[in-house]
């Protein structure tokens, strides 16, 4: 994982958090945040270091000046009135939706679940993330660590598993699918690879009348979702339903069609999308690798051969090398194939492992030991030249200035094994793209792709998913697919690619009458509910048996109540406020303060509870009658609506913020909206 220290992402650009040590804060104040101007994390990291260095110097100079003159330096500008007409302002308050790469409207679908409107809840998901049933089982769920509930209570809402509920409980949703025009628009688009990225592009373009052809080297569509995600996590029926739903919308799927030359097909299409993933598993070139190759397998290739039922067994003793999710899938699959001694080894300490917490937990629950700080040295062979074990060296992690170094300790261990699975990463590979057709590659052989438009240096060729910047996950592949579809549509309509449709938003008051609001504001104090699991013994004997059973209806409805409705926005109108403080007193989490305006730093310090979470914005009103301003710290708001309920003049209102990230399915809606 890249080093994100002091970095956070806002409006798709990386920012640096800067803070002065506490001891000097009173004297100098602190600079809150500064943009790196970079969308790419790898580029943002060096910029971050530069900004921090500059800041240190600037800070030293300020300090010396201040010491000399005995003056106190602080920022001079007062906070600006918050512009709530900027769709991003309230979007950011919906922590989960903001964190979701496809900006799924989470609180709305959770409310629909609470009303048992499973079809609607499913469709809302389908529009933005395309694969609710698949993602509800496998998503990397960046929404959950972002969820407000993790700050106000203990654990986040089980957003991902509630998504699964929409799939599990829906009825036939075919009637709600978009209509596909019979008369086509005459543009032909070629998609290479049938993974989630390409499928999303197809889903977005088909309703607009494009003729879409998908080339897939395997005999079935789905990409890594089919070949690598084991069916005990993602059953084939779920995958098939959601993947073929898109094919049935009218895509021309050509399976067993490996593209070996881009040049050969490029002229047959108006635009080409490359969604071929990062198909090359990394190898481990150490002593004995060649000699023992019969029993050493590249994890992702091995999982693929199991998915296609070419491999049906493995040795009794298996070592899995690697600390990511692939390693977790490999070890759990090995156990199900009949291995009885499976160990995972990883170079780093357990706390630094790349695997998601829940995937790691599942592996541990299935009784698989994780040996951390264990670095592979050598494959060991017996007299007949067959693999018999591996030599490792124990490592020790040392941290200096927040940077980790793994130091060899000299202690060696030997582990016996029959087979080894390598799960140490994936690379992109494009042997089939000719170097002279206008697609530029960087020094690591990755194509140069624009972060906004997904366009390569060849105007007709677009990239997305793992093929663009290396392995990520399904939801990022979907998000890329949406953006690429917008670009392809613009490109084919001769519209500037940067002239992109804005997101759809509107704010609608939820007041229904006196003491009547249209949403359930009661705050459940329940702890996060666990998803029931299948019987472990049975599950371990069956490669295809789904381990997680999903929430039953009762659990789903209870879990749905935990959501804090973060899209129910508190909207303030200073003209109506009589400064009676009713909202200040009723607010359970002390979000609201009436005070004099000042610099952000000073304001953050003088609120009823100082606003220390710099990732969360302050909502600042215009000047009130007394000359003060209203400041609301969005950080801890539980969206109970009581500020509006207690306000005698209606200066506070609760308005539902319906934010829909632009994608081609709502293209027409976006246009009408603009006219209206």
């Amino acid at each position, binding site marked *: 994982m890249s080093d994100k220290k002091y970095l956070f992402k806002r409006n798709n650009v990386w920012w640096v958090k800067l803070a002065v040590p506490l001891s000097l804060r009173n004297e100098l104040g602190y600079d809150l945040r500064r943009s790196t101007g970079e969308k790419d994390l790898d580029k943002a990291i060096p910029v971050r270091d530069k900004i921090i260095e500059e800041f240190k110097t600037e800070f030293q100079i300020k300090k010396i000046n201040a010491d000399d003159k005995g003056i106190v330096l602080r920022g001079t500008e007062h906070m600006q009135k918050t512009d709530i007409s900027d769709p991003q302002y309230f979007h950011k308050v919906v922590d989960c939706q903001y964190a979701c790469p496809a900006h799924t409207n989470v609180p709305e679908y959770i409310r629909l679940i609470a009303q048992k409107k499973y079809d609607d809840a499913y469709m809302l998901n389908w529009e933005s993330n395309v694969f609710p049933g698949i993602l509800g089982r496998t998503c990397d769920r960046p929404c959950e660590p972002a969820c407000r509930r993790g*700050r*106000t*209570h203990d654990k986040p809402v089980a957003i991902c598993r509630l998504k699964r509920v929409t799939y599990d409980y829906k009825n036939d949703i075919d009637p709600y699918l978009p209509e596909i025009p019979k008369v086509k628009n005459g543009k032909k688009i070629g998609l290479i690879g049938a993974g989630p990225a390409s499928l999303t592009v197809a889903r977005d373009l088909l309703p607009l009348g494009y003729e879409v052809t998908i080339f897939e080297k395997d005999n079935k569509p789905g990409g890594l979702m089919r070949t690598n995600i084991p069916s005990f996590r993602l059953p084939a029926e779920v995958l098939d339903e959601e993947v073929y739903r898109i094919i049935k919308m009218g895509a021309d799927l050509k399976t067993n069609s490996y593209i070996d030359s881009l040049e050969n097909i490029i002229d047959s299409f108006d635009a080409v999308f490359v969604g071929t993933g990062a198909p090359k598993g990394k190898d481990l070139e150490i002593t004995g690798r060649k000699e023992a190759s019969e029993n050493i397998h590249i994890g992702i290739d091995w999982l693929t051969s199991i998915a296609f039922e070419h491999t049906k067994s493995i040795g009794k003793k298996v070592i899995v090398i690697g600390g990511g999710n692939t390693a977790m899938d490999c070890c759990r699959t090995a156990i199900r194939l009949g291995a009885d001694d499976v160990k995972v080894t990883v170079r780093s300490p357990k706390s630094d492992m790349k695997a998601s917490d829940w995937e790691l937990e599942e592996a541990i629950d299935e009784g698989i030991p994780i040996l951390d700080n264990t670095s592979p040295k050598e494959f060991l062979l017996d007299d007949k030249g067959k693999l018999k074990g591996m030599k490792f060296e124990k490592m020790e992690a040392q941290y200096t200035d927040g940077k980790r170094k793994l130091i060899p300790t000299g202690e060696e261990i030997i582990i016996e094994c029959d087979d080894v699975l390598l799960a140490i990463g994936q690379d992109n590979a494009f042997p089939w793209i000719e170097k002279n057709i206008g697609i530029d590659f960087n020094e690591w052989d990755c194509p140069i792709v624009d972060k906004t438009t997904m366009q390569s240096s060849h105007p007709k060729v677009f990239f997305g998913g793992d093929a663009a910047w290396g392995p990520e996950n399904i939801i990022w592949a979907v998000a890329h697919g949406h953006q690429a579809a917008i670009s392809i549509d613009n490109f084919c309509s001769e519209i500037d690619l940067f002239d992109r449709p804005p997101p759809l938003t509107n704010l609608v008051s939820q007041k229904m009458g006196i*003491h*009547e*609001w249209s949403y*359930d*504001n*009661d*705050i459940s*104090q329940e702890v996060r509910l666990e998803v029931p699991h299948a019987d472990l013994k049975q599950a371990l004997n069956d490669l295809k048996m789904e381990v997680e059973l999903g929430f039953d209806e009762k659990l789903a409805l209870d879990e749905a109540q935990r959501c804090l409705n973060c899209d129910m926005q508190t909207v303030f109108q200073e003209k109506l406020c*009589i*400064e*009676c*403080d*009713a909202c*200040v*007193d*009723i607010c*359970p*989490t*002390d*979000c609201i303060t009436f005070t004099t305006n000042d610099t952000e730093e000073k304001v953050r310090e003088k609120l009823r*509870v*100082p606003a*220390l979470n710099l990732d969360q914005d302050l909502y600042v009103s215009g000047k009130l*009658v*007394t000359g003060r301003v209203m400041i609301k710290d969005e950080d*801890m708001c*539980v969206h*109970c*609506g*009581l500020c509006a*309920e*207690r*306000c*005698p*003049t209606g200066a506070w209102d609760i308005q539902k913020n319906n934010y829909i990230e632009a994608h081609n399915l709502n293209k027409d809606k976006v246009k009408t909206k603009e006219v209206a």
Partner: protein
Amino acid sequence: MSYFKPINKHPNLEKNKLGLTRRDYEGGVSTLCAGCGHDSISACIIEACFRLNIEAYKVAKLSGIGCSSKAPAYFLNASHGFNSVHGRMPSIATGANCANEDLLYLGVSGDGDSASIGIGQFIHAIRRQVNMVYFVENNGTYGLTKGQFSATNDLESKNKYGEDNLFPPIDLTSMAIQMGASYVARSFSGDRDQLVPLIMGAIQHKGFALLDIISPCVTFNNHDSSTKSYDYIRNHNEAMGKTDFVPLGEEIKTNYDEGSSVEVKLHDGSRLSLEKTDHNFDPTDAGNSLDLIRKKNKEGKIITGLLYVDNKCKPLTEIMDLPDKPLNTLEQDELCPGSEILEVINNDLS
């Protein structure tokens, strides 16, 4: 739709010396109209008790009848309480104060409760120097009975329906100073920075402390022709400079220029530091205070702040030389004089 305040609180909420947060001093959900000044006063009482590290079980909340008199239900859930009949809270407070000196008495009343039906009781509680904080939540109207004029409503202030007020107002602060109240302040429910330290000072003061707090009734007396509306008070409020409450053993944090502040020492050694304004005002001189109030009334200004303080007064229990211990803790040997003394008394009678 729920209008109960959720139990969630900000994880970084400040704690006082007892380890309690402000929220631990709350009461039930208010049933007063949204925006009522009385709710703001409750919040200031909560804040003051929180900051003074008061243990709620050592407080008694007393009140009469009125919206204001309902307010004690909305703060300090864990305290004692007595809701008396209309205007009779001062007698209850007097009795309770004699029976148990150890509790902190917070009397909450309204302008109707104190300036009309209960005015006789009010005056005698002052005269007797009952050791209590007496809040008048003054809105110029009988809120609870739907907006009749009260005795503190200004002559020129019409009611909500445009009817004229025929009688001049009673000024409770001057009356209290004349009757011997030893701590008299006026404030505004919408000015917390001023009100909280004044409440803290009143709590630490020993003797009768009156807080006459203008507290707009949003429902019946917040119209354009009212002189007790939020807007009118904000436009006519003449606050007497900043008041700071300085707990015992702490240094004054705000820095006024030399000679620009007056300090008042309270009974327990804590202090009130008052920023001086151009009134050249000495809050310990009753004549001076009465003059200032009269002068500002004439100018059509509402003077707010600490108006008068006598920190040398003797409270009721000292005047009457009552036992230091609460009566209910006195043991038999303290209560029963014994047969020898009984004999002396009996002989006296014969």
